[in-house]
């Protein structure tokens, strides 16, 4: 079936990390969760859909990496001690790390759809999706693009105040 041939066909569970509020530790938790799951022997991927402020590459020390294409789409960057966590972030597509991604909603939506469907994730137990703060374009587009697949659920991160 078409579903079997998609890049997400081999992903068993998808987890969204959300907040609403900025700066509470979404990217930090996404990273630590991925590392902990990997430590427990799971196959893990991270999709960083924070287009304006992608933090995951630096947190996993791969901010200078580039991404390549293969027949089925983009090849994720493999990170972590055993290079076994698959990561995709817009951070990898910037020519210079300080370049601002100054895009309006429609262009962000187009890239997110591509990120969701065109990354060759392979077989994963968990795909963790890190999101930016808010409830806007990135969130709507990500949920819409992921709807046909096994969305395990969302983890919400906050601070006490």
């Amino acid at each position, binding site marked *: 079936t078409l579903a079997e041939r998609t890049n997400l066909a081999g992903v068993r569970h998808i987890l969204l990390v959300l907040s609403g509020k900025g700066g*509470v530790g979404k990217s930090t938790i996404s990273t630590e969760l991925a590392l902990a799951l990997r430590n427990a022997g799971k196959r893990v991927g991270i999709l960083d859909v924070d287009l304006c402020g992608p933090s995951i590459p630096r947190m996993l020390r791969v901010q200078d990496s580039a991404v390549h294409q293969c027949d089925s789409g983009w090849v994720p960057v493999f990170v972590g001690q055993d290079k076994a966590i698959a990561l995709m972030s817009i951070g990898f597509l910037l020519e210079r*790390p*300080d370049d601002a991604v100054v895009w309006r909603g429609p262009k962000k939506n187009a890239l997110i759809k591509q990120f969701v469907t065109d990354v060759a994730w392979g077989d994963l137990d968990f795909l963790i999706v890190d999101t*930016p703060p808010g409830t806007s374009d990135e969130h*709507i587009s990500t949920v819409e693009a992921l709807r046909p697949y096994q969305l395990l659920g969302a983890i919400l991160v906050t601070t006490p*105040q």
Partner: protein
Amino acid sequence: ECPGTGSAQAGRAAACQGCPNQGLCAAGAAGPDPAEAAELRARLRAVRHTVLVLSGKGGVGKSTFSALLAHGLAADETKQVALLDIDICGPSIPKMMGLEGEQVHQSGSGWSPVYVEENLGVMSVGFLLSSPDDAVIWRGPKKNGLIKQFLRDVDWGEVDYLIVDTPPGTSDEHLSIVQYLSATHIDGAVIVTTPQEVSLQDVRKEINFCRKVKLPIIGVVENMSGFVCPKCKNESQIFPPTTGGAEKMCQNLNVSLLGKVPLDPQIGKSCDRGQSFLAEAPESPATLSYRNIIQRIQEYCEQHHFQEEKIM
């Protein structure tokens, strides 16, 4: 990057390739409306100084700073201050200003801001929600529409300082506010950060955004810069500046460091309670830092105005 749906290049620039809006923009459907620009100019004519509070990074204290800047400037009763909150998804200003539950009233001359003091008026999407937990799940174009309404339909009256609090990022809200405010004059942007590199890397992008849209940068504020224990007076770096903090970044990028503000748990408490931290903790080192920074911003704006008048 997107040239702007209102620009002459809309739909025709290289960056437009692949954007789902391209057809719409190229057909001129999103083109600039001269009548609208004239309306905004008229509405904002009585605003003397406009300051944008930006970051790029979330949770660094933009809204906290915007609220305190507003309080600080309004302490001079002869000045009229306006605080506009364009964070549509996460409006923090109503709570921080003690105005939760307030509603916006219409008058003959437009929407009336909600007044904290006689000389301090506030506008936020928060006032338009029926419940504070209602999520505003809007895509860019709808957010842009509300921001335009805030500028066009709110009767601010004569304003000495218009402070605009923004959400994190470099997207619709930021492009729109710069576009719409080009009808008037923006004195500049204050950029807020915290000391760690994960924040600075987003803030550098924001600085580049300002340069791209030719928005002058008044300077950078480093929040959460150290913590002094009230018991033992020992100082700790809760968010260590592993790459030199805002100071090094400002040196490298040739922008002004307006000041560093230490962590003080009273700040969060005052925000939660809708009180002015400056008034509740006048002796705190953080208050001293904030006051110095506010004064520098005031001096920048006044000097700017003076230079403009000289030119004219």
